[in-house]
């Protein structure tokens, strides 16, 4: 089995197009995960028992079922109830919602880590609840969560090939398609690996850098 360079050149544009889907799905999904996770974390702190118990169970449930099953559910089951989504939209929502249950835990821990004295100083200054959260607690909690949140971005990126299962033309899907057409899989699948490394290694380095910057001051 020899490496075919001209074949490699032919399929590269298709693969890069796939990579674009992968990156878009990851980034948009990440925004959903980061925002929705905060919503979960805040809802869990509301004084309403029913709300925070419900949120606890829902997030626990999502976290303990496989992403693949959730993707099939969103893409194949929800349409029966009238929610029809494109495969890409379903994939993005699946990724985002799944990972929001992880980021919610990160936020929860970050908030719990803010020293009690900060809450007390905020009370002593008589700050209204909204200001206590926006100006005092969340900025401090958020800073503590940056390294972990960065790691989840990379984890989501690496989980994105699962979107292939619901026909998203992402990188692995694209590779699989060109491979099936020509019955040559060595080059496309190897390229998939290389492209993933090409994106995630620089991202990791950037995240480490961010981490160091926020850890030092």
């Amino acid at each position, binding site marked *: 089995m020899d490496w075919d360079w001209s074949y490699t050149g032919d399929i590269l544009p298709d693969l890069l197009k796939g990579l674009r889907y992968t990156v878009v799905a990851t980034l948009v999904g990440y925004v959903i995960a980061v925002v929705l996770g905060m919503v979960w974390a805040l809802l869990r702190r509301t004084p309403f028992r029913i709300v925070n118990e419900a949120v606890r169970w829902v997030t626990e449930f999502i976290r303990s079922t496989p992403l693949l099953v959730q993707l099939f559910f969103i893409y194949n089951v929800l349409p029966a109830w009238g929610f029809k989504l494109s495969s890409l939209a379903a994939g993005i929502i699946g990724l985002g919602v799944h990972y929001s249950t992880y980021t919610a835990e990160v936020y929860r821990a970050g908030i719990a880590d803010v*020293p009690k*004295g*900060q809450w*007390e*100083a905020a*009370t*002593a*200054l*008589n*700050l*209204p609840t909204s*200001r206590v959260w926006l*100006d*005092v607690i969340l*900025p*401090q909690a958020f*800073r503590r969560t940056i390294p972990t949140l960065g790691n989840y971005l990379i984890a989501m990126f690496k989980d994105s090939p699962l979107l292939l299962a619901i026909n998203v033309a992402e990188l692995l899907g694209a590779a699989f398609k060109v491979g099936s057409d020509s019955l040559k899989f060595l080059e496309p699948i190897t390229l998939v690996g290389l492209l993933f490394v090409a994106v995630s290694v620089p991202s990791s380095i950037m995240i480490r850098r961010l981490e160091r910057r926020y850890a030092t*001051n």
Partner: protein
Amino acid sequence: MPPTDTTPETPTPEEAEGPSLEKGAKTQSAAAPLPRGSTPGIRFEKVVKRFGRNVVLRELDFSVAPGERVTLIGPSGSGKTTILRLLMTLEKLDEGLIWIGDQTLWHMDKGGKRVPANQKHLHEMRKQVGMVFQQFNLFPNMNVRRNLTEGPVRVLGVSKDEADERARKLLDLVGLADKIDAHPSQLSGGQQQRVAIARALAMEPNVLLLDEVTSALDPELVVGVQDLLRDIARESDLTMLCVTHEMHFAKDISDRVLMFDQGQIVEEGPPDQIFGEPAEQRTRDFLQAVLAS
């Protein structure tokens, strides 16, 4: 406070070159943004506070006159911090009443009935009270300026420029005018505590609560903070409640000392009497223990 011992008519050369803190306080005194005017007194009426089964305050009664400086002393666990925290609404009151001026802190009037306070009432009442903590508790995500303006802007509705101006004056007062753009992590403990004092004053409270504000400081930084508080006590008519183990300091700033044990007042009187000739054995034992440490 008699001003005699702390403000000599003719400053000695030593004093003229004293620490910036001292100078700042002096030159600023006319324009010093310290509250003056009528301040309310405080009254505890049969106050009960429990933590689980542990009854920390058992029908405690005491009052503090408007503008009076009272120091609370007593062994560890006697309830001193709890008293201040109840006043700052950091702990919930179990029974009894706490009065600030002619209003109850933890209760409000509703159709002629006294009902537990809602958030709005607590918010109104808290405007009169400020607290300085042992661990400073500055907001590390804000610079010094923002630490001092956050409350005035967000709570008192002061304009940003005005709050900035006040922050500058207060930093002058505490001798840290050059640190306005610094972050708390760049300051020494003593500097942080002085900023924390300025932050409390920026809210223009009538009652200032000080809970062992120098006990987390390195010994050489204690004096600066104490001098500042002496100045504030002299220049303002704040009602002050202070917990401290530093007897010289307590003597200087307080009109009256309350000795607590197990949530009860064992003995009270002017500082000279309590520290000089305590009547109660428990007070003598406590003072001896403090001196020994």
